[in-house]
């Protein structure tokens, strides 16, 4: 139990996961398991575009998400997707939280 708490705390000290917004985005992308547009994320979270861009850039720098320009039914949009590394990190995080519950 103590080991798991330590491991979770150590995990959440990582720059990419140290913000609730970034962790939440990553959890949501893990369950969606597909592309989400930047516009949709901005609309969902109701935070300034610059803040969202910063959060996503930090996640991208760690290789947890990837984003690119893509053609969607509403036109060309920036889309975000979780990477395999991101999936592994979130899977581990969810397992730890589950065990602690």
């Amino acid at each position, binding site marked *: 139990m103590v080991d798991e708490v330590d491991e979770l705390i150590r995990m959440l000290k990582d720059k990419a996961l140290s913000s*609730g917004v970034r*962790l*939440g985005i990553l959890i949501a992308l893990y369950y969606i*398991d597909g592309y989400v547009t930047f516009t*949709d994320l901005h609309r969902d979270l109701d935070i300034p575009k610059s803040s969202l861009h910063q959060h996503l850039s930090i996640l991208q720098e760690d290789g947890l998400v990837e984003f690119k320009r893509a053609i969607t039914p509403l036109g060309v949009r920036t889309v975000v997707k979780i990477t395999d590394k991101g999936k592994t990190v979130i899977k581990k995080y969810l397992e730890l*939280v589950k065990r602690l519950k």
Partner: protein
Amino acid sequence: MSSDVHELIRVSNDTARRILSRELRKAIGLYYLLWGTYPIVIATFYAAAFEFSEVYYYLIQFNVFSIPMIYIITMVIATVYVFLTYRFYITAHRVYRSPIITNRRRRSGLTWTVIYTVAIIVYFIVIASLTKSNNDYDNIIAYMLTLAFAVSVVLNNAYLFRSSVVKARYYDYLANASFLILFPLSFMYYFGGYILSLIWIYAGARSLLEVISGG
């Protein structure tokens, strides 16, 4: 654990809930729009076949396992719709597995998938049985089976709203209530299918507007 960690987990769950609920509402909207177009697609196909009487005659006369070709094509179109619907259910199932669901019921998503698949098979049998006979007794059986199918679809939809990720709106009630009443009736009164189609397209449009407006 420190309060900082608790707060971080709380904020992350709240953030994930916001994104997932919006994505699920979008998927529900597309699901309504998809099935809303089904009667229109079938009617267009029938009208097109009827315009070319030789084609229509061939589709009625040519049987595969004693089922006229025209019904086989209808089933093929339905299969494409069912396949697209599964994509919606996969999204819903993924969201349902997420930690933001607090009132998860014991019955697993797999059990529901099995129940739903059985219901769809029953639906196909009804379509096939309707083509073989026109007597009242068979029609009553077909009606009862179709009603059972409608109930299973509505229960499945209700299950999504019970998960509390997406709030049921009046157009969700409208879409499901109309399906329960009009879908079985549409076998006897075709116009019921078109009214159902309009209601589902309306529910789909309202769902997507909810996503866009952030309601």
